[in-house]
Structure formats: C-alpha cells, structure tokens
C-alpha cells in the first residue's frame, strides 16, 4: 500500500528543467557527461559560491549526492544524478531510476582486517558480527538476505577506523580502488553491489514534462554510452 505524505508536496515552478548535480566524487564525471550532452557547465566549473546555474536550457543545481533523492522525490529538482550507493541506502525514496550513467564505478563491500578471523568467530560464538558502516540500511539488508545476524553500528566519518580500534569486527563501505582499505590493513571479504552514477527523475515531472525529460535522458544516454 502506498504511503501518503503531505508536507513533502513541494512547490515547483515552471521554467527550464532542474537537474541536481552531485558534488564530491561524482562531480567531475557528471560535468563530463553534461558537457558531452551539450549542456553548459561553465558556471559549475567556475569558483562561484552560487549553487544554481543556467546550463543552456536546463537549470543545474549542485548539492551533496545524498541529498539528490530528497530534492528529486519532492520535485524541487525534476531530475538528478547520484550514486547507486545513495539510492540503495535511501531505497524508500520514490524516484524513477532512468539510466545507468556508467561513471563513478565503485563496489559496496564487506571488509575485515587482513588475516583476522574475528568476523567468522563472532558470528559462530556470539551469534552476530559487529559491523560499522555509513550505509546501515544496505548492511542490514545484505545480512538479512544472506541469512546472518549482524549488529550494525552507524558511523559518519572514516569507517576504516572502526575495526582498527575494536568498535566493530568489519565494515560495509564503498570501495573504488581499494587503496584506503589496503592502507588500513583491511581486505574485501564479500562484494555486495556494483555502484555507478544513475540518472533519477521525479515521478510527476516524468509524467507532466515527458518530451523534455525523454530528450535530456536520450542525450545523457548517448553521451555516456560512447
């Protein structure tokens, strides 16, 4: 049964489509994709403190990747680019996932200390492993689906620290090159999901502005499939 939100019914103005562009690790890849799709990203590339730019026919709005589903679900942005890791963690947000943009490839993994048996041992002897993560819902779902019990501990900062000082037996985190893991004496034990950048859309924008949404989607598909 679908749920009903009232305060979430955010006001939208007409005008050009608004596209949420993620800052951080996906920023460069997003700019490249937008350039190739023929949008003007010079504003985003300037050192302006502004967060809203005209991208030749599309308004570009910059924000944290984890805020993109929030803005898009409410319709404050019509479309957005964010990582699959964010979408997995916020899987209750109602946004349409239209396209795998291919860049920003990372893997969500379960990692433990090299040569350390604590993950398995705690599971056998204590009935659950202790897992530190910035993705509590992804971690909980993974252990649930694989029939194991885990005590999931949410941390905000460098999650690699947790097993080193004994907060947790292992971590669930997003890994690009694996260098941070290696430097902290950690190794990948299980791969949970492959994550790339995705194009998401607001449900009502997708219905009410079909031509514009489809056109921009097609341009981005073309730009990222090369």
């Amino acid at each position, binding site marked *: *049964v679908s749920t*009903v939100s009232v305060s*979430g019914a955010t006001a939208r103005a007409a005008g050009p489509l608004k596209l949420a562009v993620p800052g951080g690790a996906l920023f460069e890849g997003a700019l490249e994709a937008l350039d190739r799709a023929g949008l003007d990203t010079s504003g985003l590339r300037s050192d302006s403190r502004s967060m809203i730019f005209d991208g030749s026919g599309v308004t570009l709005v910059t924000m944290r990747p984890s805020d993109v589903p929030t803005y898009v679900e409410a319709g404050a942005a019509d479309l957005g680019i964010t990582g699959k890791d964010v979408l997995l963690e916020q899987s209750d947000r109602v946004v349409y996932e239209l396209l795998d943009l291919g860049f920003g490839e990372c893997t969500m993994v379960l990692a433990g200390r090299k040569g350390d048996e604590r993950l398995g041992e705690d599971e056998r002897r204590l009935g659950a492993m202790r897992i530190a993560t910035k993705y509590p819902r992804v971690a909980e779902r993974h252990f649930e689906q694989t029939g194991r019990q885990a005590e999931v501990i949410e941390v905000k900062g460098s999650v690699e620290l947790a097993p080193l000082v004994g907060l947790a037996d292992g971590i669930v985190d997003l890994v690009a090159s694996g260098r941070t893991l290696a430097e902290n004496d950690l190794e990948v034990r299980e791969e949970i999901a492959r994550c790339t950048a995705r194009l998401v859309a607001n449900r009502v924008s997708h219905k009410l502005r079909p031509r514009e949404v489809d056109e921009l989607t097609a341009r981005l598909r073309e730009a990222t499939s090369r």
Partner: protein
Amino acid sequence: MIHPIPPGTRDILPEEMRELRELERRLADTFSRFGYGEVGTPTIEYDEVLERGNGRTAGSAYRFFDERGDLLALRSDMTVPIARMVAGRFGGEEPPFRLFYVARAYRPVRPQRGQMREFTQAGVELIGTPAPEGTADVIEVLEAALDEAGLDRALIGLGDADLYRQALAELGIEGEARDSMLKRLAAHDLVGLQEELELIEGIADEQRQTLVALSQLRGSREVLEEARAIGGEAVERATSRLAGTFDELERRAAADRVQIDLGLLRDLGYYTGAILEIYDPAVGHVLGGGGRYDGLLARFGRDLPAVGFSFYLERVHVAQAEEERAGKGERGEAQ
C-alpha cells in the same frame, strides 16, 4: 510542556480547517451534481474482511483485538469497505450504484518523511457500469472536481493494470520473478529491470528493450500506435482497452486532460483494466488515483464491474495553495 501526538498525525487549527471544509464542500457538491450519494463506513473493520479485498498486498498496518478477541483493523482506503457494503446491503437493488465519500484512512509511515498515518480521502465509486462507459463517467466527474478545486492545469494519467502482468506471462515470466519485475516497473527502476531481464534465459534482446520502452510511452493517442508497433498480444489487448476508453472520452469531449501512460502501475492488488493517477504541475506528488476493480465485488459475493477514484484531500489543498501562489506570481511578473 508539549504533549506529543504520534508521527504522521496532526492537529488542524481553524484557518486550515475552514479551507479544508470549503474544499470538501466543493468536491461533495460536484459529486452530488453527478448523481452520487454520500456514504460512510466504520473506521474499523474485521481484519479478515479488509484482507479479502486487498488480496496479496498488505492490508491495514494497524490491527488490534477487541474485547471478544476478534482481530480488527483500521481501513487503508474506502474502496474495499464500500465493495463490502454494496455486495452485502444493496441486495434487492438494481445497479449502477453511484456513491461518494469524504473519510479518513490509515497507512503505515516511515519515520521523518512527512508521511501521513492518518489522512483524508475524497472520492467516488461507480458500481455496475462496465468499461469503457463507466470509466469515462468517473473521469468526467474527476475533471469537474479538478475544475471546482481550481486545479485547471492538473492532468490525469490513464494506464492499464493488466498490461505488464500479461506481457510478462507472455514471456514466460511467472511467480517471484514476475512480482519482482512488476515492483521495479512500478518504481520505474529501469536499470534494475534491465539487469533482472538479462538474468532470465530465453528472452531476446528485443523483447527486453520492448518492456523497458513500453514503460516510457506516455502522451496522447499516438503512444498507442507506438506501443502496438513494438508489442505482442498483451500490448494489443491493453492498447485496445485504452483506445476504447479514450474514444469514449473523445466522444464526450473529455479527453483533453487525459494522458495515456503505458508506464502507469498502481500498487493496490484489486485493480483490473483502466487505472488513473492525478498530477498537478505545482506539486511534485501524486494528488490521487483510482481505476477499475472489476473483480473486487465478486470477492464479497456479488459480481459487478466497478470503477472509482479518490483524492488525497490534504495534498489537493497544498496544490490549491501553490496554484494560487503561482497564479499571483505570473500576474505579478506581467508576462
């Protein structure tokens, strides 16, 4: 000291209440004008009864025992209780039955999302008139209600509830795999859908792309042709049903605000054939929805075709406020 109320519920103070009542009155007047009579049903029902109507999808989130140990539940919509009532109480009477309601319903919420546990639905049920006439009848009522609420930019999405169930069956996809794909289609998780389709053997690339492409077809009558060009028998059946409804709407000059949408899926288990959703450009959320539920009354012992829709009243109120603001803005900027 502030004494809290449960998340997803709220108090309504006089200014908001006055506006909500005014909106309710306008909607109720419109429904009455089309010959619909207002009904009420109990907020609590036997869980078994609601379950019977909702089928495999979750019924009520709020269940409790009464003093005799019977399991009761808070209703999650009005369609199931009205189906129960009509099947049981209108025995000697000849259909069609035209009924409307303005009533509270209850659904589960996720924390910190501004979701409503208790909300008001205003809607109609037309029981005993088959497609396409019945469907067109309620769409006309819906359009009049939107006008009365001042939402003249609002749009009605018209889709078909059986399309993907049948299209997937045609590809030999059944059971859990089908349910999972229907869920992805409903959420428009096109990347995930593609990935799942790739896991299934014996499906041509072309068929995979057809399913994904179908879900993106929305617009006027031409999308029916586009769908026919790529689809199989299930698509043929769904598009001819949709064409029937759209023809009927055009005959009544009521098709202008209706957008055919082959990507529309609703998550309530009882829908068959035509389904509806209501959007307004001023807000990012769906204002309401509905559709045909030709099999629901039979579950309660009287086999009658039926169709209805309902508004989320509080959301319509937000949209009204935003439309007023947008209207003022436009005049202010003197475009």
